[in-house]
């Protein structure tokens, strides 16, 4: 049976009493109404105790009615959707809502850890730093787990988030944060001026404080003005009002971050809908009408359930028709706090007393008090008695020294208001102190941004409307919109008077930051110990570092520090403001970029065919490449790869090499350009020929390699490694546009335009003749090694044919427009069937390149020179090229450099592993005699043993020497022989045949 909502007023409020909602809190059933937050529904049900505090496990109640809430944090929902540290004050009620309190065991009412209060003296500021200066293993094994059990907030779900998150961009002329009077007035002015407007409101309802405080605007009640204004805004062509959306960050160039809680108000998002959406909004101008946050006064027992911010109490009573207490006292230092008394009286609540720190209380308030029959006490609250069932008795220190006691179950507190200066301060802005309101206000703002209304320190309703309207009109003009804004809405400003009061001395714990359990005496201790700078104070005491980021508590903390250090508040200053303004789920930042969509996936032209063959794929950057093609009965990858290699070496095989970067180089200066970016010469390459090229970085190290073919006098076709396709294109564009602008040359990336296959093995020509137009001469004379030209295929499609070999076999690479890639691979398979054609993957490709001694990624490591790779002779001495001068530096040409050499275990049965260190035989391994390492390894079916390449000191001079492989990572030791890196067909007869 759901609760009876005993604390719900019979009438009023912005709730829909026709929609009753059942919910559970700590397993107990309650009911509320549509339009409630979880907090307002708990208030309506008389629930005062909602959580235990972080460090001392003190009973805590609801303090605020907004995103500044430090206490009423709950675990919302269950299972995979369990969300810890959710503010009950902003969580919208829905049917079936389940929430649980945090930081208590075994139950909220009987919390075992509340014994921490007895040890409170040791939990002072800097406690962790002081107590645990122990060996690290003590910390990890004993203290940290113990502290994590005792302290801490809610529990994460611990499983993958089942919901989706979205990211979106929006563009507008005028962005407005907040829909209070200033924000709505700004939207009116900007919208009427013809501006594209986006207004972000954190709440699910528009109106800001008007929803709780009412007022009269343009002679009508606030509620009516809001509905008329919303109707007018809805009729404007380009005004977008986004509720449940918090503007949380300000970035460069007028870019703003906002989080929209699209479906947080439902048990789970409807099908195909996202939970939250992260907005990046680009705005020409921004009006911050984010309002102000009422601030506490710090006194003993100020965290007792039943103590509530005065404005929050008004919100619960007026907006939600829920009464937090039956007999209410007010403790205020300013005029605004009295509005809570008016609201409470209007709702029929008893007023126990008003404790006003100001010497002068207006005649109107005095007459209100005498009519209402409650005393007005000049002084301050020094203590609150009570506990988990709420406040009972309030002790008052009267001005002049006498004391008084007031019986009340609720205490509304108002210490004044702090403008919400975060958004205006995110570019390292430092707000300035304004004496008349005793608060920090924005001192400038990031470019294009202006604050208006309470966020700018203007608290009167008339001033909010006026400033908001003026700011909206100016923002529209600045954005180039010249429509007529019309006249501003008008209202009166209430009286304003405030006597600053931050802290009332007294016995017992007085909390500044309730979420992190930072007390006034912690701040005094920090000052005594020298942590006086606000940045030190923050980190030493953790003041303002909880999920509420000190929205309510920071300024009070600074004021107390100022008082004990004998400085003014502006001298004490504020800490740096940093986004986000409210916690933003990591999932929202990730959006759809998770799991398989973490990055894009590139498929080769033969991918679908390869998948049909049952290929095993490997991720190579963004690409999926066929790694090997297992056949029935093969017991492991090695067996499959060995079969593929043997098939190529004895017959014919093919491999998709479309992932190589491909660049068309056009223009009369194409050859001259390539001469400058490669170490070898290309301007003298004959049309119809291909040549292997090596590029250096400007610092002399090898950058990339590949073959480049000359297809016409002014047209070269350049290939890069798969990994460097993008970077090489960028580098070549830099060379072309920045370094050599005088050259007439153009670059076009065509990596995705061509499907390219390597066809290798002694029967390659036999297979190709089945595909190529019979008129094409594929003989050794008609198409010699390193030839490159366009050919016609049977059926008329044009292809490019390159007689190049990575495997060391007689081989061609054939490329066709990418759209024909799938057809080509199917034709290759069909035409090759009589020859036993075998598709091979990247593993077999790697085996054959190691057998052939070709360098690849592991050798092109960014630390090797051309000479290290055995390619030093390619360096032209007749021309300048990128990296030439630096490659000649003493250390880069030293005789004892580690150079590429072949490596094979002396025991043919022994396995070789990459990463193993090479040391002289018979020596004890150590950094002093480490002579290099194994870079690439494979099992060579051709040699029937494990072989590899390595970078070894003076390796080429030591061919035949037996050295020692030391592999501490795998605990392996064995002897290896340094040998010629070209294990297979060193004369190269096979690829030329």
């Amino acid at each position: 049976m759901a609760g009876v909502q005993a604390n719900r007023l019979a009438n009023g409020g912005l709730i829909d009493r026709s929609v009753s909602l059942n919910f559970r809190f700590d397993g107990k059933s309650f009911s509320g109404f549509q339009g409630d937050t979880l907090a307002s529904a708990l208030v309506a049900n008389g629930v005062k105790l909602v959580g235990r505090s972080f460090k001392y496990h003190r009973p805590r109640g609801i303090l605020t009615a907004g995103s500044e809430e430090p206490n009423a944090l709950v675990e919302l929902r269950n299972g995979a959707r369990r969300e810890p540290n959710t503010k009950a004050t902003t969580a919208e009620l829905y049917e079936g809502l389940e929430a649980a309190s945090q930081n208590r065991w075994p139950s909220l009412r009987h919390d075992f850890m509340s014994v921490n209060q007895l040890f409170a003296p040791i939990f002072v500021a800097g406690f962790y730093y002081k107590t645990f200066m122990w060996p690290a293993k003590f910390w990890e094994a004993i203290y940290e787990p113990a502290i994590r059990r005792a302290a801490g907030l809610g529990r994460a779900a611990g499983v993958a988030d089942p919901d989706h998150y979205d990211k979106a961009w929006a563009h507008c002329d005028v962005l407005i944060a907040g829909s209070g009077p200033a924000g709505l007035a700004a939207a009116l002015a900007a919208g009427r001026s013809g501006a594209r407007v986006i207004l972000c409101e954190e709440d699910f309802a528009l109106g800001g404080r008007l929803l709780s405080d009412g007022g009269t605007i343009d002679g009508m009640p606030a509620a009516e003005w809001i509905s008329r204004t919303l109707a007018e805004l809805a009729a404007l062509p380009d005004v977008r009002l986004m509720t449940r959306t918090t503007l949380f960050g300000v970035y460069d160039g007028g870019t703003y971050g906002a989080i929209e809680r699209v479906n947080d108000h439902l048990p789970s998002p409807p099908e195909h809908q996202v939970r939250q959406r992260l907005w990046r909004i680009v705005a020409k101008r921004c009006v911050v009408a984010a309002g102000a946050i009422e601030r506490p006064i710090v006194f003993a027992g100020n965290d007792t359930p039943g103590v509530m911010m005065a404005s929050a109490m008004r919100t619960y009573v007026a907006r939600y028709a829920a009464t937090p207490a039956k007999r209410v006292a007010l403790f205020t230092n300013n005029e605004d706090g009295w509005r809570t008394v008016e609201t409470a009286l209007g709702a029929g609540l008893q007023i126990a007393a008003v404790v006003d720190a100001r010497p002068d209380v207006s005649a109107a308030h005095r007459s209100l008090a005498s009519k209402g029959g409650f005393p007005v006490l000049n002084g301050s609250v020094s203590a609150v008695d009570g506990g988990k069932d709420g406040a009972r008795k309030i002790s008052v220190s009267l001005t002049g020294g006498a004391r008084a006691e007031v019986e009340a179950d609720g205490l509304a507190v108002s210490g004044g208001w702090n403008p919400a200066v975060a958004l205006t301060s995110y570019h390292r802005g430092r707000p300035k102190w304004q004496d008349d309101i005793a608060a920090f206000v924005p001192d400038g703002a990031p470019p294009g941004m202006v604050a208006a209304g309470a966020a700018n320190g203007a608290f009167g309703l008339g001033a909010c409307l006026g400033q908001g309207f003026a700011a909206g009109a100016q923002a529209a003009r600045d954005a180039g919109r010249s429509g007529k804004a019309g006249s501003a809405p008008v209202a009166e400003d209430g009286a304003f008077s405030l006597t600053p009061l931050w802290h009332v001395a007294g016995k017992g714990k007085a909390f500044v930051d309730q979420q992190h359990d930072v007390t006034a005496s912690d701040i005094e201790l920090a000052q005594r110990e020298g942590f006086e700078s606000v940045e030190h104070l923050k980190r030493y005491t953790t003041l303002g570092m909880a999920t509420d980021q000190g929205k309510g508590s920071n300024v009070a903390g600074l004021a107390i520090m100022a008082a004990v250090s004998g400085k003014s508040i502006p001298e004490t200053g504020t800490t740096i403001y940093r986004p986000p303004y409210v916690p933003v789920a990591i999932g929202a930042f990730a959006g759809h970029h998770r799991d398989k969509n973490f990055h894009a996936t590139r498929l080769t032209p033969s991918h679908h065919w390869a998948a049909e063959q049952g290929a095993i794929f490997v991720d190579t950057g963004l690409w999926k490449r066929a790694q090997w093609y297992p056949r029935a009965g093969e017991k492991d990858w090695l067996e499959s790869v060995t079969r593929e290699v043997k098939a190529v070496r004895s017959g014919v095989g093919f491999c998709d090499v479309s992932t190589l970067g491909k660049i068309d180089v056009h223009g009369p200066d194409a050859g001259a350009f390539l001469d400058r970016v490669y170490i070898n010469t290309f301007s003298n390459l004959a049309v119809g020929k291909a040549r292997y090229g090596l590029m250096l970085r400007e610092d002399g190290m090898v950058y990339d390699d590949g073959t480049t073919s000359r297809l016409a006098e002014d047209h070269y076709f350049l290939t890069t490694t798969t990994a460097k396709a993008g970077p090489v294109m960028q580098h070549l564009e830099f060379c072309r546009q920045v370094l050599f602008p005088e050259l007439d040359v153009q670059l076009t990336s065509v990596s995705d335009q061509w499907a390219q296959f390597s066809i290798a093995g002694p029967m390659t020509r036999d297979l190709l003749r089945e595909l190529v137009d019979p008129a094409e001469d594929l003989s050794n004379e008609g198409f010699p090694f390193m030839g490159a030209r366009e050919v016609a295929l049977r059926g008329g499609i044009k292809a490019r044919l390159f007689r190049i070999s990575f495997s060391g076999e007689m081989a061609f690479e054939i490329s066709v427009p990418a759209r024909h890639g799938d057809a080509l691979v199917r034709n290759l398979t069909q035409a090759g069937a009589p020859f036993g054609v075998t598709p091979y993957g990247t593993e077999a490709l790697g085996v054959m390149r190691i057998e052939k001694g070709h360098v690849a990624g592991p050798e092109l490591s960014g630390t090797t020179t051309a000479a290290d790779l055995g390619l030093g002779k390619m360096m032209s001495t007749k021309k300048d090229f990128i990296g030439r001068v630096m490659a000649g530096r003493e250390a880069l040409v030293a005789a004892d450099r580690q150079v590429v050499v072949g490596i094979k275990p002396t025991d043919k049965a022994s396995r070789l592993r990459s990463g193993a260190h090479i040391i002289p035989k018979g020596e004890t391994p150590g950094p002093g005699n480490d002579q290099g390492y194994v870079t690439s390894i494979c099992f060579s079916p051709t040699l029937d043993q494990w072989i590899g390449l390595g970078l070894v000191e003076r390796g080429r001079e030591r061919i035949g020497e037996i050295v020692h492989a030391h592999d501490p990572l795998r605990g392996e030791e064995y002897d290896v022989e340094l040998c010629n890196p070209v294990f297979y067909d060193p004369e190269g007869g096979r690829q030329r045949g």
Partner: protein
Amino acid sequence: MRIVCPFCGERELGEFTYLGDAKPQRPAADAGEDAVYDYVYLRDNVAGVMSEHWYHGGGCRSWLKITRNTLTHEISSVEPAAGVGAAKVGV
């Protein structure tokens, strides 16, 4: 940050790649090792207005010379590199 590409218009930072100081000029082929060493390794780390190379890889693939205040991220000018654009027919 947003950059106004002279060819593509105002675009978001994510489309661009940063290279760095645009001031050093690649020395002539006969300038000697010291000059090339300076060009390759020595860079100013300016707190203030700096001329920088950026690449619009997510757009028109132009290299741009951008004048930017490293303290405020304010961009005061964006110029295409000298060799940007079409073939130099008839030059």
